[in-house]
């Protein structure tokens, strides 16, 4: 599922907005029995604006899951999240003036799964980067 979502981000967003002033943090971790670091595909998200990190203890997913209630208003309409212990297969889009003190502010939208929330993410890109195609 994550592979389909990340491939969509690469082909439908990053390739279509090559001039967008954007940074992507791809935080990878095991969630399914079939997952492992060895199965990470270097060919999936190849845009130079992407930074890849391997998060073995699932620290970021756990951190976000604990704060998901406060982010609920920004969840895309097509998304579902049942308050599990680790947030995954998820995107979170932040404005250019966002700053992370206790937590990152200026969250525009977040979606789960990436595929389920993709129309909102695509629409946000159109709004943010309409002149950057």
């Amino acid at each position, binding site marked *: 599922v*994550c592979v389909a979502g990340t491939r969509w981000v690469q082909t439908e967003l990053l390739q279509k907005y090559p001039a967008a002033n954007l940074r992507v*943090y791809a935080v990878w971790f095991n969630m399914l029995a079939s997952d492992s*670091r060895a199965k990470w595909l270097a060919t*999936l998200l190849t845009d130079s604006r992407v930074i890849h990190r391997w998060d073995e203890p699932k620290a970021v997913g756990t951190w976000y899951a604990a704060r998901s209630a406060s982010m609920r208003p920004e969840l895309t309409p097509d998304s579902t999240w049942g308050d599990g212990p680790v947030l995954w297969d998820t995107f979170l889009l932040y404005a250019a003036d966002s700053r992370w003190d206790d937590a*990152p502010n200026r969250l525009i939208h977040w979606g789960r799964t990436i595929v389920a929330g993709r129309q909102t993410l695509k629409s946000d890109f159109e709004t943010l980067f309409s002149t950057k195609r």
Partner: protein
Amino acid sequence: VGELGDLLVAVKNSGGGMRNKLRRVAVLTVLVAMTMWAPSLVRPYPVEAATAAKLTDLRGIDDLKTLFNQDKGKVRLVLLVSPT
């Protein structure tokens, strides 16, 4: 066979000039054929060259926080994903 023989005689009689022309035509034909039938021989990399993605270990949530704040001024997209 007769026509080919006539052609060879004509090439022989014309000296090096005709031979050079034929050689140029042959080289050009081979190059065109390579481009059409085996583009990878001419262009050994994809047109949309991929950046070599690199995966490094995250050193805790503060690692992401530091990166995030360093990139202030850019729209930022966080993806929480598993490899399969």
